[in-house]
């Protein structure tokens, strides 16, 4: 059984290796085949034909970050939901109530964000 476990993860590693290898190999082959004639014009940043002005790394609307924070919270919530769901048969009704409390608290958080107009995009 131990071997099955190890082998399975070896496969995963192989997939990772292949996933990395394919682009590398393909791009290397491409390098051999494709022409290489850079000009200044080709290397400018594309900006619908006009000359690019100031740095592209502009400041973003804070909403993006707030959504990221929301995501972190709710994604982590699933850290608890998954084990609970898997073990739900053994846990029973009480675990359901417990999880309900937990989720309700998080829902209040969502509600909070909603009410505070955080969920409104732009």
């Amino acid at each position: 059984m131990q071997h099955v476990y190890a082998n399975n993860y070896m496969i995963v590693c192989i997939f990772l290796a292949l996933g990395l290898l394919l682009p590398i190999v393909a791009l290397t082959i491409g390098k051999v085949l494709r022409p290489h004639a850079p000009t200044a014009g080709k290397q400018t940043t594309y900006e619908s034909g006009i000359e690019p002005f100031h740095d592209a790394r502009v400041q973003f609307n804070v909403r993006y970050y707030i959504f990221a924070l929301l995501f972190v919270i709710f994604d982590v919530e699933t850290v608890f939901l998954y084990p609970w769901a898997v073990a739900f048969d053994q846990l029973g009704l009480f675990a359901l109530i417990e999880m309900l409390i937990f989720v309700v608290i998080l829902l209040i958080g969502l509600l909070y964000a909603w009410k505070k107009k955080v969920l409104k995009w732009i």
Partner: protein
Amino acid sequence: MNEVSLSAYLILALILFCIGLYGALTKRNTVIVLISIELMLNAANLNFVAFSKYGVTPNITGQVFSLFTITIAAAEAAVGLAILISLYRNRKTINIDEIDSMKR
């Protein structure tokens, strides 16, 4: 692939922890500092999980603990970033050395 021994995990965790600590204490960019803190927390997680599997008395508690830690770490990171954003709005920097409006 032989069974990886406990000490390997512990050493890895210790290394991660030290890297995190070093980063947290020396780096000037606040985001990197926050990431370093995450690294430290995750080193502890690694310890918990390793002990939970290969420890003196293997049991599930360590994994449960690490679940809690993950959540807490996420909350901490979220709060930290939120504070950083609000600071950035006022101060326009995330460089920890420049955050010194209160002189000693």
